[in-house]
């Protein structure tokens, strides 16, 4: 009997293809929007996760200041509680730490090769290379000797090299930072964009001692970056560093730490979560248009029932029962919603790939989202088709046959 209902419904829909199509339009647009929006959201999530994975999951970042109850950081620039001796102690006294490097950062104007360029100047230790997995394509990295002698040597990233020296080899050239001449001893390999969106190749690295004494004139350091010996030991390393620093900073039990240790995978998680929130938000907005599509089906079906009153009367006269009519109209709604859903999916997938091609945004169409969209559009069809179908099924045949 269900099969017969399908045949009757399909014939009825085919009789007025234009009206059937217009009814479906709302669902087509709704589903298409959902698929495209969710694909963009999922693409962003996947990209974030991928980029953060490339940063390494065994990294810890130690910052001065405390975390308040609200999770907000205080004191970056307040109590400067980290010193380079802390970094040395961490590396020397904790075996599961593979390397620790002090880090200082400041945006500075760098002059060289008759150009100037505003970039991020970073003071680091030799360990930084291994911790961050930076490759050198020319020359050498900063050495311990450079650090001890506060040498005026620098490494430059690909973007800086290109903007100051073009295609020329920059090694041994002089650049000026705050009027101080630095000799370029190495060129860093390319790293691309970070998960946060900044250009990692737009950087100049100098020994941290040089940064502290000559460029910034400070005795504290801004961060310590630590690499654990393996990803699963990272959390344990964090615990041991905490104990060590509390002891070194003479913090009494019960008092807060005067520093914060961030596991990079926590940051990755947070970034991934916010990408998820964005994806859900986009999907919800698009779902509203799916709802509108359902309302469209209901409206047009109500009009359709009125227009087809005579037809319903004829069907009842030749033997259709109330439930035959109900089933016919619900199946019509279901078929329209399903076809609309399928077309919407096709359009959604096509627009996603168009957006990817034109705007170069990452997109990811997940098969489970497609299936859900199809099921939801079917559900929308049945739900919004029910009321018109009920109206049709409860027509009185005598009145229906007389209807003009």
């Amino acid at each position, binding site marked *: 009997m269900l099969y017969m209902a399908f045949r009757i419904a399909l*014939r009825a829909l085919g*009789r007025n293809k234009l009206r059937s199509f217009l009814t479906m339009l709302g669902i087509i647009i709704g589903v298409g929007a959902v698929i495209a929006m969710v694909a963009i959201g999922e693409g962003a999530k996947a990209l974030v996760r991928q980029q953060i994975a490339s940063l390494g999951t065994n990294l810890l970042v130690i910052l001065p200041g405390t975390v308040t109850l609200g999770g907000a950081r205080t004191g970056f620039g307040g109590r400067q509680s980290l010193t380079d001796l802390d970094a040395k102690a961490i590396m020397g006294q904790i075996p599961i730490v593979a390397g620790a490097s002090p880090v200082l950062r400041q945006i500075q104007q760098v002059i060289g090769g008759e150009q100037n360029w505003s970039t991020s100047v970073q003071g680091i230790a030799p360990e930084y290379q291994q911790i961050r997995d930076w490759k050198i394509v020319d020359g050498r990295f900063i050495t311990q000797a450079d650090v001890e002698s506060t040498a005026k040597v620098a490494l430059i990233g690909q973007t800086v090299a290109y903007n100051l020296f073009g295609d020329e080899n920059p090694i041994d050239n002089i650049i000026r930072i705050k009027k101080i001449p630095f000799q370029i001893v190495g060129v860093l390999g390319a790293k691309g964009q970070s998960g946060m969106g900044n250009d990692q190749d737009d950087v100049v690295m100098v020994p941290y001692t040089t940064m502290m004494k000559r460029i910034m004139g400070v005795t504290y350091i801004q961060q310590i970056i630590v690499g654990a010996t393996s990803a699963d030991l990272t959390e344990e390393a964090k615990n041991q560093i905490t104990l060590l620093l509390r002891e070194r900073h003479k913090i009494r039990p019960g008092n807060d730490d005067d520093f914060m240790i961030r596991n990079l995978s926590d940051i990755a998680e947070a970034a991934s979560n916010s990408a998820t929130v964005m994806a859900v938000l986009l999907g919800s907005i698009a779902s509203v248009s799916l709802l509108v599509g359902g309302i469209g089906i209901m409206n047009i079906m109500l009009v359709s029932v009125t227009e087809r009153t005579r037809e319903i009367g004829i069907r009842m006269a030749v033997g259709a*029962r109330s439930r035959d009519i109900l089933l016919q109209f619900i199946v019509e709604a279901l078929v329209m919603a399903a076809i609309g859903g399928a077309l919407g999916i096709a359009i959604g997938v096509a627009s996603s790939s168009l957006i990817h091609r034109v705007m170069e945004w990452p997109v990811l169409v997940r098969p489970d989202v497609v299936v859900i969209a199809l099921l939801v559009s079917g559900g929308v069809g049945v739900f919004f088709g029910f009321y018109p179908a009920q109206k049709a099924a409860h027509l009185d045949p005598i009145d229906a046959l007389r209807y003009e």
Partner: protein
Amino acid sequence: MASEPSAVSPRAPHAAAEEVIAIRDLRKIYRMGDIEVEALCGINISIHRGEFVAVMGASGSGKSTFMNILGCLDRPTSGSYFLEGEDVSRLTPDEWALIRNRKIGFVFQGFNLLSRTSALENVELPMMYNSLPSRERRERAVEVLKLVGLQERLDHMPNQLSGGQQQRVAVARSLVNRPALILADEPTGNLDSKTSAEIMELFQDLNDREGITIVLVTHEADIAGYAKRQVLFRDGLIISDKKVRQ
């Protein structure tokens, strides 16, 4: 009369003419607000298999109400209606739908075909509600369309057919499930006199050759003249009931 089972009626017509319709003291009262209208005031009538009956009467005489009850579309207030020996006057709407499907064929003044649907599919419509497999449906539909002379127009849409041809399709549709009776409501009302004559001759043919029982409503005397028996309604009662030809 033919001695083998006909293409349209359920039983060999030479069997003892049984009572297809038995109506006893049928009454129908409509309540409209505070006013009660007695549309039928006690109808008694018997119609046997193979009869061709014309029901006549002015507007408001009760003939439409009578036809609605006969067609299992409306319930009498009191009295009984036996169709082929079964009391059908107080069945549920779903049971009525089954009776209409199997036992009654309708022909309307306005043809009432589905638009944008071929003649063949229109004729198949009653069979869609008793779940015949599609090959049998098609064969049966072609058979009845041949019977009314439209075998050349199986795939035509109603807007490609003349009024007379559309009514023929409607007649074919009414025959497709081999009903016990055909109910025709002013079947020639929308046709010119020449086509009206053709359709009435078709009814006569079906009645004479195939033995199908026909009850037809009309207000035109010359249309009623094609029938074998004429029943006249006035003010909710049958005031005359006479045989007019053999």
